[in-house]
């Protein structure tokens, strides 16, 4: 297992190298002229050229890329070209709000949808199951934006159950503002996730070992929670762990509508402004997290399924 982890960690180096190279090239092809952006609407050709030189954008591409690698190695991404703010500070300021929103929403959604899926799998073929399927499909068909607009208008404005938008850095008071976006994030995931987990559980329920357990007279609850759930963990882990990096990268729409000062908004602004230092930092961190969680899911596979050995 140790050797496997070390090998996987070594694999991340060329992958990260590839991600950084791709980001770098894409930005230089499609990112516009950041110096012209930063120089402002009145800038003359000379001013743009001067700024280009100061930002290092007049250097050969390989030198610019090498500088990017240097920043990665030192974890010092410098300052944003658009806001002049320290990127590490921007990241630190945005991480807390993002995780406050995404983590509870994610775990609540997983808990609720797995429970619902187990119940539906148990009730398969009944009218409850059929009605739930229709409801889940209907929920999936509605755009995320509609949930946000309707939730904010009715629950926050019309019924005054929640604040309309805002944020409080206080670790307790922030939940006032987070409650509604978390609720919406959970509701949005009910449709697709319940359907997915239900399918996973139905696959397991049709296995021979379930029939044997039933023949032995085991209680249905015990079969579902002890055996089916455990054996269905591999696909569940896959979908759950793959989503984890996105928890860090934030939920742009929820952040924008509910005024949560998270990382999603920072990334969006950076793209809008051709703010390459921020884009570089966020892309790199995103890729790193993605690979970390991939490795984490592989380790979890081995933990939950004794047939899997990490070599």
């Amino acid at each position: 297992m140790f050797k496997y982890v070390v090998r996987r960690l070594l694999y991340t180096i060329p992958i990260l190298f590839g991600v950084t190279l791709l980001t770098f090239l894409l930005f230089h092809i499609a990112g516009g002229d950041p110096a012209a952006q930063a120089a402002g609407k009145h800038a003359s050709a000379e001013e743009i050229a001067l700024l280009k030189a100061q930002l290092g954008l007049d250097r050969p591409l390989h030198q610019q890329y090498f500088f990017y690698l240097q920043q990665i190695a030192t974890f010092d991404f410098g300052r944003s070209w658009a806001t002049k703010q320290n990127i590490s500070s921007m990241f630190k300021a945005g991480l807390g709000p993002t995780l406050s929103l995404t983590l509870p929403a994610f775990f609540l959604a997983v808990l609720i949808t797995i429970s619902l899926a187990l119940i539906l799998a148990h009730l398969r073929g009944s009218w409850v199951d059929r009605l739930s399927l229709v409801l889940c499909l209907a929920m999936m068909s509605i755009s995320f934006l509609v949930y946000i607009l309707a939730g904010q208008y009715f629950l926050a404005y019309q019924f005054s159950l929640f604040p309309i938008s805002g944020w409080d850095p206080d670790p307790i008071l922030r939940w006032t503002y987070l409650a509604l976006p978390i609720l919406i994030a959970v509701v949005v995931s009910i449709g697709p996730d319940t359907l997915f987990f239900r399918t996973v559980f139905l696959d397991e329920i049709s296995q021979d070992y379930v029939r044997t357990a039933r023949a032995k007279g085991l209680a249905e609850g015990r079969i579902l929670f002890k055996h089916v759930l455990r054996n269905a963990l591999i696909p569940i882990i896959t979908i759950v762990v793959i989503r984890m990096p996105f928890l860090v990268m934030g939920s742009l729409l929820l952040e924008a509508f509910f005024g949560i000062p998270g990382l999603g908004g920072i990334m969006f602004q950076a793209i809008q402004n051709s703010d390459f230092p921020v884009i570089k930092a966020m892309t790199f961190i995103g890729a790193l997290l993605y690979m970390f969680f991939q490795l984490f899911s592989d380790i979890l596979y081995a933990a939950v399924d004794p047939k899997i050995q990490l070599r």
Partner: protein
Amino acid sequence: MIFCRRLLTFALGLSFVFGHLSCTRRVSDQDGTINTVVSANIKGLDPIFSSDVYTNAVVAQIYEPLLTYHYLKRPLTLQPLLAAEMPKVSEDGLTHTFKIKKGIQFQDNPAFPGGKGRELVAEDFIYSWKRLADPRNQSDGFWVFDGRIKGLNEWREAVLKEEADYDTPIAGLVAKDPYTLEIQLTRPYYQLHYVLAMTYTAPVPREAVERYKEEFINNPVGTGPYRFDSWVRNSRVTLVKNPNWREEFYPSEGEPEDRARGLLEDAGQALPFAERIVFHEIIEDQPRWLNFMRGNLDFVDIPKDNFESAVVGDSLSPQLAEKGIFLQVSTEPDVTYTAFNMKDPILGQNVNLRKAISLAYDTETLIERFYNGRAIVAHSPIPPGVDGYDPGFRNPYKEYNLEKAKEYLAKAGFPEGQGLPELEFSTISSPTARQMAEYFQQNMAQLGIRVRISSSSWPQFTNKIREGQAQIYGIAWLGDYPDAENFLQLLYGGNVSPGPNGSNFQNEEFDRLYERASRLPAGPERTRLYQQMRDIVVAQAPWVPGAHRQSYYVAHGWLKNFKRNSMIQDYFKYLRVDPKKRAELKAKL
């Protein structure tokens, strides 16, 4: 039934918990706090980086330049702010002498000995303007002085070569004494007074810049009526009244109708009124509007999607009026336009083709469809409220006239559009911009002109214009100051791509007039030159002028002295909230 009851109890419980918590946060309801909104994130709090209007909305309350605009008078009139009086200008227009008010204090800050702010002196302006010019700071505001002040550009170059520093004197910036600042120009530049009303030119204390270095952007120290209190990044900035601010009073004169509108009730009262201003950063329209309707914001620009429910005809809807809300309309000093790239071999050489396109473009319908009617048709680059604007002027190629357009198209050598290759219209990839491009495409199709739309991100779009690659494109310009020069420079030959003249229009006569006008003070002669330039632009049609947009603001009845104009940025000191009335009106919301 039991379930319903439980649900109701749960809902009431939620409402109590969250409602109660949010009320405890809103202590501001009890005092005269102003709750305002910016629709983009604030970038930082340094005047040399105050180019975007949202950031400037905050920075302009903390920092003050030499001059400002009178709050109530229209057209906009400059008046002294940190200056003791309007500057004395030498006969040749090259020397501008400012007397600075005595006793102006910088806000208290640990950067000063004992934490007590010191007095502002003339040297602070020189230091601050060097800072604006310093290329290492990468400010996008240097254009205000670029090539204008004797020795400043040379100092800038020397700094780059490390041959000069902040102690190196500049010939054109001299502190005659602590309260007298003399500015010597390279050539007459009467717009200098306007740029000295811009936040870029506000003085900063050297001690604070040197103490905080790059973090000065988050530790502002100005002379303004409000000082920085806190910033929850990307959420809200709070400013509090500066206890050391000098004595200044609410104006006692304005436009004739200002008295009837209650805008002179506070005449002669000491400023500022509000103890605290909270700038909420709310990017999306719906939460901004709902927060206003709940009374969490004191005023707001009506979002496009809420316009029809808020405004009926030209008045506020009765439902909003009942709640004590009032409406204020302000025509912005801006112009939207469709530009032709004059370097393009098809469009650049064919004035009749450009005129045909102009005649076939139905701007009135565009205004109805895309701006909810919140704009007036632009007949030239010069917007209302700006010297050189003539409300009676009509551009003969701006009337929507398909027959005439077809005649011009035939004169251009493309009858019914035959023989004319497909043209490319560049725009940004937002849904509205795309729809506007499609509207242009449909208008041209009526004339037999085929148009291909090219959408890209804002950086790519501006890059395309700067590189002279955009054949036709739609864009807007919001004025920096109320002078036609700021709009006509978009067509000056010296500013062609990658400068702000993205249409690459070059006309010797226009350039000659522009250069002559730029050496003249405001007056009939300069206005005449502006109008001659306008006529050249109309005759040559490098643009199809679009619209001058209007802002429709709604404010709650508890907000007093509200009179918006986007050029006036330091207006929060004039605003007053009546907490008693707020409590009363909020109950109706």
